[in-house]
């Protein structure tokens, strides 16, 4: 499984599991219809209380990320309409939250913060093209 739990983070274990499953769904690593490991299997494998896994799974179900069919393993739900895009945006918003707090705390002007983000994005895509060129060689 693609989940790692960090007991030093201060984030409850069930949240860490939820966040990682959501992230993998948003990136497409976990595709619609794909099965999640059973509560038992995951808890034995990770050495984690099975109740914690069940809690994470039922919240994921509540959030419409996975679905439970009677007698079958839990699977990733199909992305209806713009659901996949929505999930990606949700992920991004969450990861921007600490940045937004930092911008406020440092007292940096909003336009300046946006300009820095755009700069960083364009140098990251420049890096990508460099790498593609490298690969072609």
């Amino acid at each position, binding site marked *: 499984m693609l989940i790692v739990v960090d007991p030093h983070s201060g984030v409850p274990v069930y949240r860490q599991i939820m966040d990682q499953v959501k992230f993998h769904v948003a990136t497409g690593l976990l595709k619609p219809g794909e099965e999640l490991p059973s509560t038992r299997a995951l*808890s034995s494998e990770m050495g*984690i209380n099975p109740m914690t896994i069940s809690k994470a799974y039922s919240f994921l179900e509540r959030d419409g990320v996975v679905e439970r069919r009677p007698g079958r393993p839990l699977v990733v739900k199909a992305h209806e309409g713009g659901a996949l895009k929505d999930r990606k945006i949700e992920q991004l918003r969450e990861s921007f939250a600490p940045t937004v707090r930092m911008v406020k705390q440092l007292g940096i002007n909003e336009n300046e913060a946006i300009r820095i983000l755009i700069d960083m994005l364009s140098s990251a895509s420049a890096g990508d093209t460099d790498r593609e060129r490298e690969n072609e060689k």
Partner: protein
Amino acid sequence: MKVVEFVNIHRAYKKGFDVLKGVTFSIEPGEVVGLLGKNGAGKTTLIRIAMGMLEAQQGEVRIFGMDPREKPIEVKRRIGYVSEDQILPPFLRVGEVIDMHRGLFPDWDNDMALRLSERFGLSPRERIRSLSKGQARQVALLCAVSHKPELLLLDEPAGGLDPAARREFLETSIQLLNEAGSTILFSSHHLTDVERMAGRVVMIHEGSILVDSDMDALHEDYTLALIPRVNGATTKKIIAHEDCLSVRERSDAMHAVFRLDPSRTAAVLERDLGVTGVNCRNVALEDMFIELVEGQE
């Protein structure tokens, strides 16, 4: 029915030196409870009282609704117990120790014992005295769980084990939980293990319960506030707040634990104490434990 019930437990080893000063809590079937506290806080004493190895001088203990001192056999038959200082007869062979336990428990599950023995790589011919600490503890665990006990009492079970052996121990306990739905009460100084395994935490400090909380709530609804030593906030004023559990003086700040989530803590500090710009955060169990325990002195 409750699996474990402690009601107002008192225990002193000598007059005037109380180890437990009125401990009350109970455990429902299937719960996994981590018992935390500094050395000498009374964890081992409490677990021994649950086992019936020690008697409470005041208060009541009920295991499956029975007094473990009155019905020692009925109670012990349904319990698995592992402790750090448990001693297996050094002159016996591994196989002999296992056979001895098999004879004691009518519900012994041979398949499970074999599976664990294979998983741990134990050889039945080997003498207990030639085992490493980790292997000896694995024999003790095998013997404690192979009758699929309804209640597992683990007193610092991973003490002195290396990280791999500890993880193996943890996984085996979890497996038992999955297979037999056992209830677990365990004490440990490895708070990362407690974080993985426990659904609930009971912290004991100087013989009394300091915190008894759902593990997730301890993360989400408890906050560590790092309060700069400016604008007149004093430890006295902070600790006087009804939601403040502990305050600790650090070099340039005060560390306070509040029984509120971070944003409400920040709001309370601003409204009631007039302190702004406080770093309020959720913290890992280990940090929370240190703040709470050290903040009591």
